[in-house]
């Protein structure tokens, strides 16, 4: 089945995107990326500690991966734009995941500031992938701003609660032209499969993989679940019904 995911003219080899945070080591992170076959991975930008020797994370990201800087740490559009510019100056290309979080309790994204940052960065030629709280009006504003996708949360970051926002995700999938990539809250492969069954173009997970007892195996499980969910979506999901209907025909001899 020919079902490519194409974002900003680039064919993405896997609909499973992997975040690189929270891994206990860079080698474990690398093994997880390889085990899952993830093509798009995210990184953050932080101050270095000049007193400490630090490994270069890029040395542990397999060649051929598309590295997308996230603007985590930004509390407003201006900070997000600043981080995007810094990330691009580091040479990681024009892809940027806009993440603007002023709310430190629930870590929910600020859609208004995200839209502001998206407008500016899209006009500067960035491939903008905005993390957002799923809201149709805001998603349409982002689409109009020229983003490459929208990335609505399934549940708050790090909660592993799954696709709590399923009805909103379905509405976005039905209403938008840009790919909908569910990001945050995806705690199990079955959550990832559900997101794909709803019609998401891809899923991003980080915490569930990085903190699992076997991150590489978990990463592979997620990738398989994403593939299964996508196949099911394309094949057509049977609707649920209230009245049971037998799967086998009547016997004709017992009753």
């Amino acid at each position, binding site marked *: 089945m020919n079902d490519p995911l194409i974002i900003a003219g680039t064919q993405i080899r896997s609909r499973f995107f992997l*975040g690189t945070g929270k891994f206990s080591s*860079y080698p474990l992170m690398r093994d997880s990326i390889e085990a899952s076959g993830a093509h798009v991975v995210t990184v*953050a*930008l*932080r101050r*270095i500690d000049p007193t400490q020797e630090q490994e*270069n994370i890029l040395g542990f990201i397999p060649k051929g991966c598309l*590295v997308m800087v996230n603007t985590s740490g930004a509390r407003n559009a201006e900070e997000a734009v600043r981080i995007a510019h810094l990330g691009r*100056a580091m040479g990681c290309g024009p892809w940027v995941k806009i993440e603007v979080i002023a709310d430190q309790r629930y870590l929910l994204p600020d859609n208004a500031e995200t839209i502001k940052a998206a407008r500016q960065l899209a006009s500067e030629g960035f491939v903008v992938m905005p993390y957002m709280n799923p809201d149709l009006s805001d998603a349409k504003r982002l689409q109009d701003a020229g983003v490459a996708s929208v990335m609505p949360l399934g549940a708050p970051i790090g909660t592993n609660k799954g696709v709590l926002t399923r009805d909103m995700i379905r509405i976005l999938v039905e209403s938008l032209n840009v790919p909908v990539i569910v990001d945050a809250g995806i705690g199990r492969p079955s959550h990832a499969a559900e997101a794909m069954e709803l019609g998401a173009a891809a899923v991003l997970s*980080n915490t569930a993989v990085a903190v699992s007892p076997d991150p590489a195996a978990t990463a592979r499980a997620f990738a398989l679940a994403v593939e299964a969910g996508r196949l099911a979506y394309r094949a057509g999901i049977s609707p649920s019904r209230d009245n049971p209907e037998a799967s086998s025909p009547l016997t004709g001899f017992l009753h």
Partner: protein
Amino acid sequence: MRVCLNGKEMDVAAGTSLSDFLKTMKIDGQRVVVEYNGRILAASRLWEAVCLTENDRVELLSFVGGG
């Protein structure tokens, strides 16, 4: 003279170039991005041309794991 590196004040000899400043701290120029008084200085040749002055703000950043 005092300059601010990654939010912390430090003493630096007057006339030090940004590139010497990084060398003294053994910073690998390949894996950092430099923001100097709010401006991104992407190329290392630019670092040689910059002479630090009192109260300069230098940010040194690099990629780390993130979701």
